[in-house]
């Protein structure tokens, strides 16, 4: 009886001890900075979300999916410039190298919110869930704002 209690206890101890090893997932190594969602004109039913992903770990990771209740579909996209044409394309993943930083920004990688479920007021926050290659997740609240475009500032004015 006592022995079986000990073996049950040891099994329980193992179960408890093991999860932390598994829980060291991609999401734990990724730091998120500067999230934002581009404010859009009235009637516009899609927009882009931008943020910076920093990988503090020693292994490469990848953002493979994003989800948001603010849109009917949330996708990973990029913009490529080919032969003078700007082309927007879905991407399967966004790699984040060990110790590296991947920036989602206008003119490049971004999260597309397609079919906005409600108008996005400037200053509101859009919840976005980031899903990494191992299924681990990270929640982000991205403020809606007019996206600052590089080159739009006018020194001296």
């Amino acid at each position, binding site marked *: 009886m006592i022995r079986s209690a000990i073996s049950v206890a040891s099994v329980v101890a193992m179960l408890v001890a093991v999860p932390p090893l598994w829980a060291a997932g991609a999401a734990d190594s990724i730091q998120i900075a500067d999230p934002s969602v581009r404010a859009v004109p*009235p009637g516009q039913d*899609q927009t882009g979300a931008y943020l910076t992903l920093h990988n503090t770990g020693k292994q490469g990771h990848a953002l493979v999916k994003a989800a948001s209740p603010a849109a009917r579909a949330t996708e990973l996209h990029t913009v490529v410039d080919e032969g*003078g*044409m*700007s082309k*927007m*394309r879905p991407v399967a993943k966004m790699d984040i190298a060990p110790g590296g930083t991947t920036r989602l920004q206008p*003119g490049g990688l971004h999260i*597309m919110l397609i079919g906005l479920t409600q108008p996005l007021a400037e200053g509101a926050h859009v919840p976005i869930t980031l899903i990494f290659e191992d299924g681990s997740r990270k929640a982000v609240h991205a403020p809606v704002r007019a996206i600052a475009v590089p*080159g739009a500032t006018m020194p001296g004015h």
Partner: protein
Amino acid sequence: MRRLKILVSLIVAGLLLGGLAAYVAGQRAGEPVADSTPRLPSGGDFTLDSADGPVALASLRGQVVLIYFGYASCPDVCPTSLALIKAALQTLAPADLARVRVLFISVDPARDTPAKLKQYAGYFDPNIVGVTGKPAEIGAVALRYGATYRFTPVQSAVGYVVDHTSLTSVVGPDGRLVEQLPHGTTAAEIVAAIRRWLPH
């Protein structure tokens, strides 16, 4: 014998040098020596539809007109370009601003009605007018302004995207296409281009 050898060498060297000089001169004559005015498309007048009626380029003589081809559901490239144009317009004095118009020409009339374009363009700046037309009309205008675009189906909830050039054409007060600004041209450079052509 030895003297002959030297003479032949001199002649050969002379021929080589002469040939090289002629070649260099030929190259010079042939190249389009640092052309500061790259060849522009023909441009020219057109009339397209806005929510407030037809807009004819010919009716905008005396003004500097910026023309941008895009589409309203363009998620990234068009808003970036329009934000730069907006920033440029905001720095102009009211008297100058009154002589500048921006036409945002949608190449995607299937999704962009004039009413939608009015909302879209006006959101950026009241001086930006959204216009569109029948696909063939837009195609003809785009061709004359060197704008290219292609409807591309993608595996995405957006259905299709429009690959397109992101040029801002500058039409002078006389209606001539005078400049084309590449994608990412800064607000300061846009202002400079407007000022170059504004009548003084």
